[in-house]
């Protein structure tokens, strides 16, 4: 999982000389592992099992909001039929945000890896620093920036580039917010894999008379693929499940699946079973997509 490891910081870590594979075999390993594994068992696996049980509960006839234990797949049918557009929007917006984040992140990661020189650490801090302001405050700041009275909408309207006349409360604002919020998760893994690449290999591309674009396409980009892969996953997964950007920047109607899950759990009485079914469907859909994606583009480095 080294590609993900680099996201987690510590860019100075470079793989050491081929370390002999761990050879110690003892009960100590289990002792070390036990507390953490237990914690994940009780607070990750067990809750998921409970969520699965809830998603199969049935409505108590005559008592709205009451449910009993059952094996009832109707909740899933409801989740898939009633909320199909919400799923579609979630994946569409998250997909577009992931693509935009890739386009924006790559030049930054590239510059950090090859052009920054002594400014590299400073740039690294700059990438992470904005994230020390609460992400809800930053998303709210976007609602100010993109507001109808703001300079962005003003400029675009002046140039007649906005068909609808406003950005805020449109899907466009949601995609912009998602792109912004998860950008560092795209920058850091790409940077990590470019940083490990040998710049001489890229120079060799130029020496062999490849033009800039060809060198990029055939040398640089393939070398950074593990980072691009980790980055797209780390951007897409949280973006697909997000509801805050939609809530703060998006329209009143046409929500994403995250909003439905959140509302059903916290605002609609008796909404648990359908919301649980929606959560499971979301998780399954994401896991399937991740699996297919990793098989298509994957390297062994990811896990």
């Amino acid at each position: 999982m080294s590609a993900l490891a680099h996201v987690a910081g510590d860019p100075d870590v470079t793989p050491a000389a081929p370390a002999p594979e761990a050879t110690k075999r003892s009960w100590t390993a289990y002792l070390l592992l036990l507390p953490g594994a237990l914690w994940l068992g009780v607070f990750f696996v067990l809750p998921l099992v409970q969520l699965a049980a809830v998603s199969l509960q049935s409505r108590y006839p005559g008592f709205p909001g009451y449910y009993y234990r059952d094996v009832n797949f109707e909740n899933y049918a409801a989740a898939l039929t009633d909320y199909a557009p919400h799923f579609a929007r979630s994946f569409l917006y998250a997909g577009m945000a992931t693509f935009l984040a890739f386009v924006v992140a790559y030049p930054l990661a590239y510059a950090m890896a090859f052009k920054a020189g002594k400014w590299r650490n400073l740039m690294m801090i700059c990438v992470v620093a904005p994230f020390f302001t609460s992400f809800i405050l930053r998303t709210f700041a976007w609602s100010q920036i993109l507001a109808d009275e703001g300079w962005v909408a003003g400029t675009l309207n002046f140039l007649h580039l906005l068909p609808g006349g406003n950005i805020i409360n449109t899907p466009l604002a949601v995609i912009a917010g998602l792109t912004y919020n998860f950008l560092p998760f795209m920058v850091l893994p790409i940077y990590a894999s470019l940083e490990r690449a040998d710049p001489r290999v890229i120079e060799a591309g130029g020496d062999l008379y490849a033009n800039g674009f060809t060198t990029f396409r055939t040398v640089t980009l393939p070398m950074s693929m593990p980072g691009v892969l980790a980055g797209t996953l780390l951007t897409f997964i949280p973006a697909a499940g997000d509801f805050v950007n939609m809530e703060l920047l998006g329209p009143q109607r046409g929500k994403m699946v995250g909003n439905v899950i959140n509302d059903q759990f916290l605002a609609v009485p008796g909404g648990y079973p359908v919301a649980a079914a929606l959560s499971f469907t979301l998780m399954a859909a994401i896991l399937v997509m991740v699996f297919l994606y990793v098989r298509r583009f994957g390297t062994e480095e990811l896990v």
Partner: protein
Amino acid sequence: MTTATTTPYRPSTAKRVQVWLANHFAMLSAILVLLYLFLPVAYTFAFSFNDHGKTNIVWQGFTWKHWQDPCRVDGVCGSLVTSLQVGAISTAVATVLGTLMALAMVRYRFRGKAASNVLIFVPMATPEIVMGAALLTIFVQGFANIGLSLGFTTIVFAHIMFCLSFVVVTVKARIQSLDPRIEEAAQDLYASPMQTFWKVTFPLILPGIAGAAMLAFSLSFDDFIITNFVSGNESTFPKFVYVASRRGIPAEANVIGFSMFVLAVLLVVGAQLVSSVRASKFKE
């Protein structure tokens, strides 16, 4: 060089601009992207001085009053204290548990290693909303029966859980980068396993552990989605801001958000300086 001429080749201005742009394209776009990253932070800062009425959306005039007493608004400082406490406890627990797990994963061979890897990886690949929903159902329908109701404790339990995997991955990378021969050398010199760990391994992986702790704290401090599910009536700083956003975030929240940003940046820059000073001393 038979075609050498007396005047040296001078590219036209347009050509030179083009070459300069091509050479600096990556750096220029990087600077633009960084400005983009900082734009909302600048807004947060600027609007902390806004003499706003009910909502803090349009600029209305300059005032110091939000900076003079950020706790003036009900709940801002209380939620900040809760967030700091939650962050401190979950960081401490997650860092210890995660470091132990990372040691087991790198240094030992054992049955169930692949399964453990999956157990560590899947929480990172699960959308927060699913984890939050799952925790809510177990807290409300399961653990409530044993006297655990939604609040501070459940927030801490949840935060430890989602920080854990990130700690494992960060520390693991650090341990993997160590040369195991250093530890073998210590053992050859008759150090006991405990001595080897505390005198050799631990100091070497400490930067990784520190990085993991910082990551865990920032994940915990900024978490909203999971916290929103498991917090009951307890309010953390992100939750306060989110709830307030319905009727208008008070500028006092901007003051606190921006101050945390400055503190964190100072901390990171300080840590960088310390490590670079140490590195240069080491070279001498």
